[in-house]
């Protein structure tokens, strides 16, 4: 009697899958939580990634229960301005897909046009194939993908690389995931002129620009990692700096912030030497003052990198 009960119980379990348990078990939840914590802002991106993860998990569960399923197309396109975290998210994506079991190794291979396109006839195909082979079992991240296509030059070898890419993206879907990245409007032109790409890419994810408070948060967390901090007045100066810098050309979001802070640290070191107030302690070494920020060229109408 008891035996019967147990086997019945077992059977009812066989037909059920706890999605939430699955989420935690595969470690996907951990990646998503990390993503939420370590990346400031980027709400639409995070939502899209959560949705994608959910879809892939459901697809896996369907497979386990013997329902009709097919490997979804996972190729993606990340579009957004420079410094909005495309590469960082790609790295997380690779980890996520690995934990979900859609790529076997989960490594990220980052390439640009130079790594794919050759310099003379017959050079491109082996070069592209070499890169694709290296990326198999992982994720291939093509930065500034639109450079592959140069309509102004009929004999450009980029077209050849595109053809091989498309072929492998279609035939070896189980082996690698391709992520194309670049600025938004140029990516749009690229997709318009290469319809083959558009149809093979299922997920178009847009990376919005950061707002000033978000940029300040990013800057603070960068400094935190380096054991620096801004004084109250320095913080106000930095907000002013961000607002001015945003209006200037070549603003690269988080990357510009990192550069600005690097220069502030440089000026702080310089100031400490000039002041020469005797021995310094940890407190002094880790404080960025208002002057360190204010000395930036941006405040006097110049341009920072």
């Amino acid at each position: 009697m008891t035996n019967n009960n147990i086997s019945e119980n077992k059977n009812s379990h066989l037909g059920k899958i706890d999605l939430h348990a699955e989420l935690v078990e595969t470690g996907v939840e951990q990646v998503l939580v990390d993503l939420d914590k370590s990346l400031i802002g980027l709400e639409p991106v995070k939502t899209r990634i959560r949705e994608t993860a959910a879809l892939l998990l459901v697809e896996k569960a369907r497979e386990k229960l013997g329902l009709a399923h097919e490997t979804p197309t996972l190729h993606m396109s990340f579009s957004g301005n420079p410094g909005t975290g495309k590469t960082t998210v790609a790295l997380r994506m690779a980890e996520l897909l690995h934990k979900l079991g859609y790529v076997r190794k989960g490594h990220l291979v980052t390439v640009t046009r130079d790594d794919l396109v050759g310099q003379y006839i017959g050079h491109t195909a082996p070069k592209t194939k070499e890169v694709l082979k290296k990326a198999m079992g992982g994720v291939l991240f093509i930065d500034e993908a639109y450079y592959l296509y140069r309509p102004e030059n009929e004999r450009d070898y980029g077209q050849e690389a595109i053809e091989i890419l498309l072929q492998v993206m279609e035939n070896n879907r189980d082996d690698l995931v391709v992520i194309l990245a670049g600025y938004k409007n140029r990516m749009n032109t690229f997709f318009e002129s290469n319809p083959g790409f558009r149809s093979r890419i299922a997920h178009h994810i847009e990376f919005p620009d950061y707002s000033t408070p978000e940029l300040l948060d990013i800057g603070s967390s960068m400094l935190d990692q380096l054991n620096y901090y801004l004084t109250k007045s320095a913080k106000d100066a930095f907000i002013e700096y961000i607002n001015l810098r945003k209006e200037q050309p070549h603003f690269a979001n988080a990357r510009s912030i990192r550069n600005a802070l690097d220069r502030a640290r440089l000026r702080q070191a310089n100031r400490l030497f000039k002041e020469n107030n005797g021995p310094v302690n940890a407190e002094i070494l880790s404080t960025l003052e208002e002057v360190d920020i204010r000395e930036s060229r941006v405040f006097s109408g110049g341009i920072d990198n």
Partner: protein
Amino acid sequence: MKLRQGTFSFLPDLTDAEIHTQVQYCIDNGWAVSVEYTDDPHPRNTYWEMWGHPMFDNPDAAAVVFEVNECRKQFGDYYIRVIAFDSTHGWESIKLSFIVNRPKDEPGFHVSREEVKGRSMRYSIKSYATDKPEGKRY
């Protein structure tokens, strides 16, 4: 006559999935895997033609299976093997080698005997296929 050279040669031919598993084992051991082909099956023919470079830095076996299939497209009627080279100091040699493709028709070997001084015999073997020039054997 089925050629029995290398590992697994007494088993049925490996499927692509099985090749993938074996190659992944090699890669996980840090061996450099490469693909070679030939149309001369003599056992002393040690050095086959290389199909591309050895793949040192591919973390996944899919790349090797891909190359095997590329090689099959061009040399479908040749012998193709996968070899794994261990570069560890003191080894520096092939750790694993197995055939992944063979011609449809394998004619086998002829044993020739030569009487030499006294009543000694000298034996040698020769593939029937190698009567024809290279490239036209299978």
